[in-house]
């Protein structure tokens, strides 16, 4: 029936469309990022399977907010531990990538690292969306909808779609912030990821109360949007600083890292070798280098 098709596509575009648009705009441009985000999604799938295997023994948990909170906290904890593991893989990967870059005579910069972090985060959000939203999206192909007694304002599917958006924004962003924190030893940024993830997860407990979805929904969406804005401005700032740093050493066209498959001018040797150091150091160096110009200017 036409109305069933409308329902399905409505919730498909609402819950998954933005993620696809984001993928097209940012990830799909670089084939390496596509592969990485798929790999990330796979890793997170295994993590979720692992988590569910742990909970197998405890399900069904008593229907109390505290036991749910326990499950959520444990789940977030496991994911955050894995996130640290992901960081470790990311770091190892960067070393390899930089070596390759050097051999091929390409440049591997801060912007590329941000992109890699984004791909890791995007993979996680895809995994969450697929399993916590896409899994029940086929139910919208029928003629019915589902309203829960605790949330008469929004259908179950609308709630699911909005959470898909919220957690999509949130999980993609906090990975960027988390990696940056570890990069720069900014512990506030390191704590940002688990804190926001846990906060958003625990916010969903409000849904268990009558009409709670009206409160929880904007808050979680807000947390997602805030994380995105924060990560965005972080990336913007760092990206520009790094790019400016590049221009000092090797004036090049923009956005042309290793991941752009494009021949590069041989980069300045001292900077390429600095890839093994943390970008914070680069940052500091860039600042110090810029100081004389400013002064002289």
């Amino acid at each position: 029936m036409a109305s069933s098709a409308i329902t399905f596509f409505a919730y498909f575009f609402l819950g998954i469309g933005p993620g696809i648009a984001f993928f097209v705009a940012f990830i799909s441009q670089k084939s390496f990022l596509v592969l990485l985000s798929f790999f990330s999604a796979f890793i997170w799938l295994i993590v979720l399977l692992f988590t569910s295997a742990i909970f197998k023994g405890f399900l069904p948990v008593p229907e109390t907010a505290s036991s749910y909170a326990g499950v959520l906290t444990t789940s977030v904890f496991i994911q955050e531990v894995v996130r640290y593991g992901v960081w470790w893989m990311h770091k190892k990967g960067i070393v390899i990538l930089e070596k390759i870059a050097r051999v091929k005579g390409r440049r591997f910069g801060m912007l590329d690292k941000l992109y890699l972090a984004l791909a890791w985060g995007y993979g996680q959000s895809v995994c969450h969306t697929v399993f916590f939203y896409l899994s029940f999206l086929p139910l919208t192909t029928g003629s019915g909808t589902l309203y829960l007694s605790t949330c008469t304002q929004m259908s179950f599917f609308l709630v699911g779609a909005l959470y898909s958006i919220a957690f999509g924004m949130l999980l993609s962003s906090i990975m960027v912030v988390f990696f940056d924190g570890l990069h720069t030893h900014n512990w506030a940024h390191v704590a940002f990821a688990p804190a926001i993830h846990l906060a958003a997860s625990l916010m969903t407990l409000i849904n268990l109360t009558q009409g709670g979805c009206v409160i929880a929904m904007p808050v979680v969406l807000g947390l997602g949007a805030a994380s995105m804005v924060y990560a965005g401005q972080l990336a913007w700032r760092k990206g520009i600083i790094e790019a400016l740093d590049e221009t000092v050493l090797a004036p090049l066209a923009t956005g042309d890292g290793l991941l752009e498959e494009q021949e590069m001018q041989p980069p300045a040797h001292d900077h390429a070798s600095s890839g093994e150091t943390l970008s914070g150091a680069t940052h500091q160096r860039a600042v110090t280098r810029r100081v004389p110009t400013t002064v002289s200017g």
Partner: protein
Amino acid sequence: MHKLLNSVFLSFVCLIIRLACGTNYPSVGVIGDAMYSYMTYTGGWYMNLNINGTVGSQGNPEGTLTGVLMSASDVEWPLEAGESILVAGMAELDALLLRLLSDPVSSSNVVGVLVDTANSSNPSSMSSASKFPGAFNAPYSNTEYIWNPWGTDLQRASVPFPVIRMSGSMSRHVEAKLRQNRAQNYKGALYKADLTMSMFAEHNSTYCLLTQGLGCQPLGGFSVWAAIPPMEPLIPNLTDSLALMDGKGALVAPSSKPITLVISQINSVSLFHDYTKGCSAPLSGLIAMLTAMTILSLNDVGRDYERQLAFLAVAGEDWDYMGSRRLLLDMSVLNTTATSGLNLTLIDQVIELGQIGKGFNYSAGMSQLYVHSQKPGKTEQLYGDANDLIWALMNATIVTSEIDATLLQADASNPGIPPSTLMTFLRHKPSIQGVVITDFDHQYQNTYFDSELDLPDQVVIQAISSAAIITARALHNQASPRDLPVTPLEVNITQINHLVFILSTCLMWDGPQPNGLQCDYVQSYINVGYTNQNAEKLTQPFPWHYVGIVAAELPNPTNTTNKREIFNFLFNFMAEMAASNSSGYPCDPFVNFCPSGQVCTAWKSGHNPLKSRSSMGRCMTTTTRFTQATSTRVFFVNQSDDPVMLLRDDFAEFNKQYNWPPDPLWTESYWSAQTPTIKVYHSEVNFVQVAVLMSGLALTLGTGFAAYYMKKGFENSLVGKRTQTRNRTSRVQQ
């Protein structure tokens, strides 16, 4: 392993989903189940057809119908808009249907009617029959007389929308949805239902039988009759298998003994065929007849009878006296093997046991029954004078001391006998002395005649026992030799009450063991293997109170295969009670036939020729026969061992002679399995759906554009900054 992983994973996913959305569902599949509630096969008001058209309700022949669930009590009549599915309790159903039948505007806005059976308040009366059921058959002209004041005649009405009876659990579920729809004043996101009830048949019964192929099937069943004492076979000691298979052993030698026929009916009807109960009408009478036979059998009488007693349980009488009309055609025109011995010219007395379930006077604390007879008439035909029979019955009542019972003669102001099979016999042979024993005088006491509320609680066991004892004594008195003192019948009232009670549990109650046809008592006669699951998931014998569709008659009228269980039970029970002795030879309906004059009883493997010692039947000397109870136009011929149905149309002479109206040729439409189906779900408002779609598209495009422009902006800003820096750098270098 995969499955395990799946379940492990799903349970976790669902845990998260439930936290995210605040649900209590343990798995994704359960979310789907929560969205839709289904109910299949609980019975609809199915379509029947006759030669003139259709009765019953019809869904969308092509598929489903969708409408908003609405409580019938919330409708502001006339219903002028909307596609509504009206939900009514049993108590409001008749009024609602009558209203819709007389109100085409409202009717056109109704998509379907659902019957809520969870609501415990039953109407004080409910009857789908007319005020004078089967009036056309009356042997008197006052067909306006009201025997059944509660009759609505809905069973002969036709509505263009499906009417479906919900199970109790579905009713409770729908009630909750209705409350929500009502709270929203039937606006916004409402609960809707998809109804599937496609009746295949079209136009009328001749069209659906002859043109449509698989459009419909004739209604029909089997009547059973038995004789006390057993009649002499025409060919004694016939043992040839082929001849026996052909029914030659069932032929009866000519006799001159006058016959007293005792009649009761088997079937009833209601709007929802499978939920027909018919406890008072006609099962109370049927059980009384079976019990009367048992009393005679226990007293081992009959050998010296000067009269031939015959007992007839007739099927399908609700459909314009289909069963008796066909029986009389078979008896008087076709002279079938099955009716051999049941010679109409010899039948001079008929006692019919009608509805007697309420025949108990509570203030007097005793059974109170009425005996109706047809007045001989003045200018019209001269009907047989039943005074002899009435006297015998009255006398039997007086000598009955085991039980407190009175038998009253029905009021002389009645136009004649109440609706009964006797009417058909009087049409064919007015000289018959006929009486009908009932629990009412001027009008039915049973306010639930032909409805699904004609339940066991409408029946008093003592009334049945009384009728049985009185009838047995009267019969014994009539049949015993006139010149000798009559040996009184011994009646053990405890035993009789017990039998009536057992037969009532087996025949009046539905449901799983120990009630219903699966009760031990019935199972001691036949194998009740044909069961189905009702909507409440209870396994029970197939519903049988409604006559159902026809099955081919076999050449041997004592063959129990190819017949539904109720007919088989009646056959076996009546065969045993009418038997003079049991030869005890093992037998079956396939190879090991009983010799002429005997009948194979208690065969317990149905259609299955596999036999064990315990499932084998035993030959009994008895005259018990199945006869086809269907339209007088439906016949079967054997073509290469497959019965093929023929529609005959060559009994105009018979119809004219007995002034029968054209045979209505009642049929029942075919429908697909899982009919009817109700699917209830919450339906989103179209506006919201479009709004979500638009926001989804806008958000998707917006994200795309925002991402694109952010990237561009970033690049531009970079270029700008770089140029700036480069300029500065160059300036520094300068």
